[in-house]
């Protein structure tokens, strides 16, 4: 694993370009910085400044090389690279509250935007008028949409929201795509249809993720639990409560292995094999062996005097990240066999982790 600190500000979100030589990050402000990798260092090469509110989501489409950003100013922009400069195009998302998250669809012909307006805006490009249009999904959503993830079939969309529900919607736009075939989640998929809904997830649903095949859906919620819904097996839901602080982000690294991270500043590995078979595997951040140097008697009594304790000074956390992890992202490897993934956190650091499948250990 390698860690790189982008400054002192928390990193709200990040996204990689296709060959992972560039990374787009937002340091908790209304600007997106694009850094280029050179050796072990990262150099800032672009600044995307169009938003007036804090940036809440960034996504970089690998094939079409477009970046979509969304912010608390209720806007979203699609950026295209022209002559070495990123040019923004405003998207008419028509929301009256802040946008919270944004994700390109697998085929990159549309993107979904979650917002505090209790709706999801699915946006696509209309060639005739040369602008981005949006359609709204509102059915059943009673509070802010906190997270989104696309199914590999480019039509189904999972959404976790603050109304303690996790849902799978259809985001089928007949103007731009063919009718999708049936999936374990359902066969009739008109736009906005709810194909799966889990109520009472225990807490705000911070992150959702479809498995590489799209058959299972994992989500993490604020009551320190992780859950998986099994599409083919009757959409049965399995919960697992953890003893740690709530998790904020979850990704699938193989068809059965899940990595999640959150306020504990450390990624955890879980595995899902079937209904009721969701288990914790291990902590993925092995704490560095803190060098316990011998303390002199003088130091001992000084500690006792100043801090009323003889323990060593623990100013740093044992984990690589010194503050909560906000987002996980796949870096290397196909979705079915991820080799590397990255995490960004409130400590301003980005860590690239290597994932070793259990069978090889």
């Amino acid at each position, binding site marked *: 694993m390698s860690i790189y600190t982008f400054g002192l500000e928390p990193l709200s979100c990040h996204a990689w370009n296709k060959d992972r030589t560039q990374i787009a990050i937002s340091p908790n402000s209304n600007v997106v910085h694009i850094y280029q990798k050179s050796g072990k260092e990262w150099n800032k090469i672009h600044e995307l400044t169009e938003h007036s509110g804090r940036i809440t989501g960034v996504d970089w489409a690998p094939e079409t090389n477009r970046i979509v950003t969304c912010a608390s100013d209720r806007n979203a922009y699609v950026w295209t690279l022209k002559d070495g400069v990123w040019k923004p195009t405003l998207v008419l998302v028509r929301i009256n509250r802040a946008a919270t998250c944004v994700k390109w669809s697998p085929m990159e012909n549309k993107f979904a935007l979650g917002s505090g307006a209790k709706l999801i805006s699915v946006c696509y490009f209309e060639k005739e008028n040369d602008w981005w249009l949006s359609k709204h999904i509102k059915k059943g959503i009673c509070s802010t949409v906190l997270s989104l993830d696309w199914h590999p079939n480019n039509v189904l969309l999972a959404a976790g929201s603050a*109304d303690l529900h996790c849902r799978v919607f259809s985001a089928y736009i007949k103007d731009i795509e063919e009718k999708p075939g049936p999936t374990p989640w359902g066969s009739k998929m008109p736009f906005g249809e709810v194909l799966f809904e889990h*109520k*009472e997830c*225990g807490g705000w649903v911070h992150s959702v993720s479809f498995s590489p095949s799209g058959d299972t859906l994992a989500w993490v919620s*604020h*009551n320190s639990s992780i859950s998986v819904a099994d599409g083919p097996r009757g959409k049965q839901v399995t919960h697992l*409560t953890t*003893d*740690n*602080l709530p998790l904020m982000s979850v990704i699938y690294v193989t068809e059965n292995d899940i990595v999640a991270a959150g306020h504990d500043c450390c990624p955890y590995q879980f595995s899902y094999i079937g209904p009721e078979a969701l288990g914790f595997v291990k902590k993925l951040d092995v704490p560095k062996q803190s060098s316990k140097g011998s303390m002199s008697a003088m130091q001992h009594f000084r500690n006792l005097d100043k801090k009323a304790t003889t323990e060593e000074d623990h100013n740093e956390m044992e984990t690589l990240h010194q503050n909560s992890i906000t987002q996980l992202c796949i870096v290397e490897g196909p979705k079915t066999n991820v080799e590397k993934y990255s995490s960004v956190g409130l400590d301003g650091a980005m860590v690239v982790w290597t994932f070793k499948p259990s069978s090889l250990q």
Partner: protein
Amino acid sequence: MSKNTVSDRFRKVDVDEYDENKFVDEEDGGENQMGPDEAEVDSLIRQGSLMGALQAVLKNPPINTKNQNVKDRAEGLVLKVLSSFKSADIEKAVQSLDKNSVDLLMKYIYKGFERPSENSSTVLLQWHEKALSAGGVGCIVRVLTARKTV
């Protein structure tokens, strides 16, 4: 000048009640929840079978009911059982509980903290320490995020 400058009754109006988009929790029929069986628990305490009493008092938690009396009665009963344990036995008792019971115990502990009585805080703090080592901070997070609690 406006008509009504004397009365400030308008300040006490709960505006959230009139908000048509107000978030309402799902209603879950909890009218029949009576809480743990008082007679059963009392008899187990008298017999000295404290582990059994603990198991019994953690059954049927009045989570869904809106009846405050049932909740208060349940809390009082739990407190009685927790106080009758010797300090040395607390750890073993907590170990014997499964994950959901530890979460439920933690909910009762925090409920007990809300209204401290004579000796209750000491007892509750001892139990809190052992429950924390069994359930971790996740257990406490679930107490905080639970929309319906004891």
